[in-house]
């Protein structure tokens, strides 16, 4: 339970941080932000690498391989799609002063 508390604090604070970041975001950014946060949980790739890196049995190795494959897809795909969506904001930044 001891360590549980520290984890609880981290969970709580991370939740507040995430919540506050999104609060008051304009509608126009909903989809890019969804995509961006989709990219961020691509960090699951790191966990998948660790899982595969410590797999002992063939079954664990196979599962770990799938995990890394999927995780890599999440991270790379999330990045490309978000980047493409946000690229759209480039051209219109010049004419308008602020949004």
């Amino acid at each position, binding site marked *: 339970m001891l*360590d549980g508390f520290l984890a609880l604090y*981290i969970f709580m604070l*991370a*939740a507040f*941080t*995430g919540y506050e*970041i*999104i609060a008051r975001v304009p509608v*126009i*950014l*909903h*989809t*890019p*932000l*969804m*995509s*961006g946060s*989709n990219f*961020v*949980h*691509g*960090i*699951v*790739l*790191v*966990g998948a690498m660790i*899982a595969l*890196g*410590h*797999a*002992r*049995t063939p079954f664990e*190795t196979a599962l*770990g391989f*799938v*995990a*890394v*494959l*999927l*995780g*890599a*897809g*999440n*991270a*790379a*795909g*999330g*990045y490309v*799609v978000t*980047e*493409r*969506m*946000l690229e*759209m*904001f480039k*051209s*219109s*930044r010049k004419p308008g002063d*602020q*949004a």
Partner: protein
Amino acid sequence: MSWLPTLVRACYFIAALLFILGLKRMSSPRTARGGIVWAGVGMLLAVLATFALPDMHNRGLILAAVVIGVAAAWWSGRRVAMTAMPQMVALYNGMGGGAAAAIGAVELVAHARRAAVAVPDTAPLRPESWALDALHPVAAVAPLSPVELVLGVLGALIGAVSFSGSLVAFAKLQGWMDRRFVFPGQRAVNLLILLLALVHGAMLATGHLTVPATAAFFVLALLFGLMMTLPIGGADMPVVISLYNAFTGLAVAFEGFVLGNEAMIIAGMVVGAAGTLLTQLMAKAMNRSLGNVLFGSFGAAAGGAAQEIAGSQKPIEAADAAVMMAYAERVAIVPGYGMAVAQAQHKVWEFARLLIERGVKVRFAIHPVAGRMPGHMNVLLAEAGVPYDLIADMDDINPEFPATDVALVIGANDVVNPMAKTDPASPIYGMPILDVAAARNVIVIKRGRGTGFAGIENALFYADNTRMLYGDGQAAAGELVAQLKALDA
């Protein structure tokens, strides 16, 4: 403890920091573009650091999987059309959920193996212990603690639901699955599946880690994600995708706890919270509650007591429409999904510029759920180079329609459908709409008599002050441009 793991943890810390800063930047239009780069740098750092971890086996396999996964996703993400973005997000999000579930499976299997050996592993057998030290200093070489087991199982459940659910969402938006899948007693069946999955999860979490139970648990979880998503209409998919996005975040955070990986905990939890709020905001923009999206019966009443519409659609020629707008004082352009399909934004903007040069006051009126994703129209108009100050929100422009000479509707349907206000039997009843009917004249560009997303008739097209300009969005806009130029020549 050597310096290497410390260095890796420092990289993880920086990555977590960059993720948060990146998301912060992404939530403001001015800094949004830089945000994804920051987050990307964080990701790169974390992945490279993980490669450098000591005591990692299967390095070749890891590299292969990473390369294949990245290459496939990069390639597919680069080449899809802009309009297909939402389903790609669903796809990649499902992958993340699947990865979390697979990690949970590996951990459960490894836990069962270790528990079967009875003697706890020695350090080299479970070398990731360095990462675990912090959160459970004593349990490092022992099997998972009860809290870890519970969170690991929960993470696997949520991840699996997100995986299969996101794939269904992908298939629906991709057009592979046109029909909604509904049958009587569906809710009860879904609830039963969820309960069964939870029961099996509880078994796993309390140490009954048999192979059949584990397999059944994952099958049930995947089935639940499938069944839960099948009955939801495609119109609600962006909200559902956002929800699964939050799910995946949570699953990643929980599996991060099991692995003792702080970067996963924090990134996952931040996304979990941010995604939950985002889901609510998106549902609100469509004037729906989240519960209504998930369990409601959108479209179920459609075709029922649908209101009869009197009158006929009155066509107009491009030349007449161009003249009408050329001599108007105020023109509001209302784009919708059709403009996206026809990729007509560039032509539309060219037309608008010509009008502006003639002294006409032009504004673009954007409904929050026009198109197929929130901000869809803004993104397209931004691509075409329309300045922000010409773009007006629904709340801003609605009071201005009565003073507008011409409202040019291009490929929009549901978002300008007055029946949302008048017909309680309509599936879009209650959704706030753009009040174009209040404009002095309305010109509607669409290909024919096709309905919009909700699949219902639109009284606007039959109104006395409405004229229909039939044709593909891009072609029609191009013709308007040509006519306008001809006027001056």
